[in-house]
């Protein structure tokens, strides 16, 4: 059990764009790499309006289900898959990643770990973006979420994999809290 109380979070604010983005932040693999897929979506607010000042991060296993423990996310060399990506949203609220589909880790359903930050959002939000189940049985988490589980599963579209994030209201994304939070 934790013995210390965690430091509180605060909003990322409006001025992170000159600090957090870096060259190649959203390209976990170079476009055109065999197996490369576009993971993309829109972050919207309770009125359905896109957020042009959100930041989305993903953290994922490689296609074999191996958890990368390699440095170099901030200086991509075009060969090392680090599993970490960061994408600010554009004026239409859209984020994009060029990456590989994650494999199963320890026998679980494959998913991207996702964190969302934004001006107006006072603390970070965690969620999961599962690959389409394609007939697989939902896992314990998806089952426990019930009829909102669809918000945690990416859709295949003509561009690749689509995962929209709705902060509030109809179709609100299921956000996650873990033991030790709060």
């Amino acid at each position: 059990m934790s013995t210390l109380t965690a430091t509180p979070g605060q909003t990322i604010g409006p001025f992170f764009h000159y600090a957090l983005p870096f060259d190649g932040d959203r390209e976990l693999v170079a476009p055109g790499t065999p197996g490369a897929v576009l993971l993309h979506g829109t972050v919207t607010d309770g009125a359905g309006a896109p957020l042009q000042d959100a930041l989305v991060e993903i953290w994922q296993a490689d296609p074999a289900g191996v958890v990368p423990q390699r440095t170099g996310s901030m200086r991509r060399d075009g060969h090392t898959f680090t599993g970490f990506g960061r994408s600010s949203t554009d004026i239409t609220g859209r984020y994009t990643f060029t990456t590989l589909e994650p494999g199963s880790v320890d026998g679980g359903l494959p998913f991207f770990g996702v964190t969302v930050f934004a001006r107006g959002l006072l603390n970070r939000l965690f969620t999961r973006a599962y690959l389409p189940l394609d007939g697989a049985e939902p896992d314990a988490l998806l089952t426990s979420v019930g009829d909102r589980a669809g918000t945690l599963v990416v859709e295949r579209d003509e561009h690749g994999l689509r995962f929209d994030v709705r902060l509030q209201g109809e179709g609100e994304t299921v956000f996650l809290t873990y033991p030790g939070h709060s």
Partner: protein
Amino acid sequence: MTPQPETQAVIDAEIAATAHAYEQAGVEETQPRVDYAPYRSSLLRHPTKDPHHADPEGIELWAPCFGERDIDPLEADLTIQRGGEPQGEKMLVTGRVVDGDGRPVRRQLVEIWQANAGGRYIHKRDQHPAPLDPSFTGVGRCLTDDDGTYSFTTIKPGPYPWRNHLNAWRPAHIHFSLFGTDFTQRMITQMYFPGDPLFALDPIYQSIVDPKARERLVSTYDHDLSVPEVLMGYRWDIVLTGSHRTPLEEEDHQ
């Protein structure tokens, strides 16, 4: 028709009402509320449903790795990035990043960004007429050492106006972005300076409704860190949410 901006008194009354209700409820909270109306930008940007409890699994039990390849050690000194000496009060900020059990978060990435001494960010949407400083970008990165310690040399940021309400000013702060040993420890926050008169007026700071919890974001002035005739020293330690790793696993990953 642009509505008249609300006054500080309106915001103050909302902050006070929420603080009173929190005291009456008697249940301790340690993180900011995401549903905190005095911060007007939060109104449409907070989830209305409670977060769903999940046991971390797979990738969530690990965190991205950063190393010497990612960060130039010079990025920890924000006063040398543009060749000249930046304007303002030079300062050092240092502290330890630990997990909920007090274990150091070793060799992990810390990113900061901040306004300059006049309260101006290098950002196209910052319309505060305070001058930009050609010698200061306000961006820094470093890796913690084996004791979890980070350290930045920078300039004390100024407070700045924003448009939450009429005459709204943010207390001076430095943004911090942190990773732990688990994905679930990822956090972004803001570090403040002791004794700031704007604390009581600021809805972002007050969104942490518990007074003790808010104070965890306030650095302390540490005279032993100050360097004669060079800079002032501040100390600020950071506790991430508890790691799910056992001590045995920790050994395995050394």
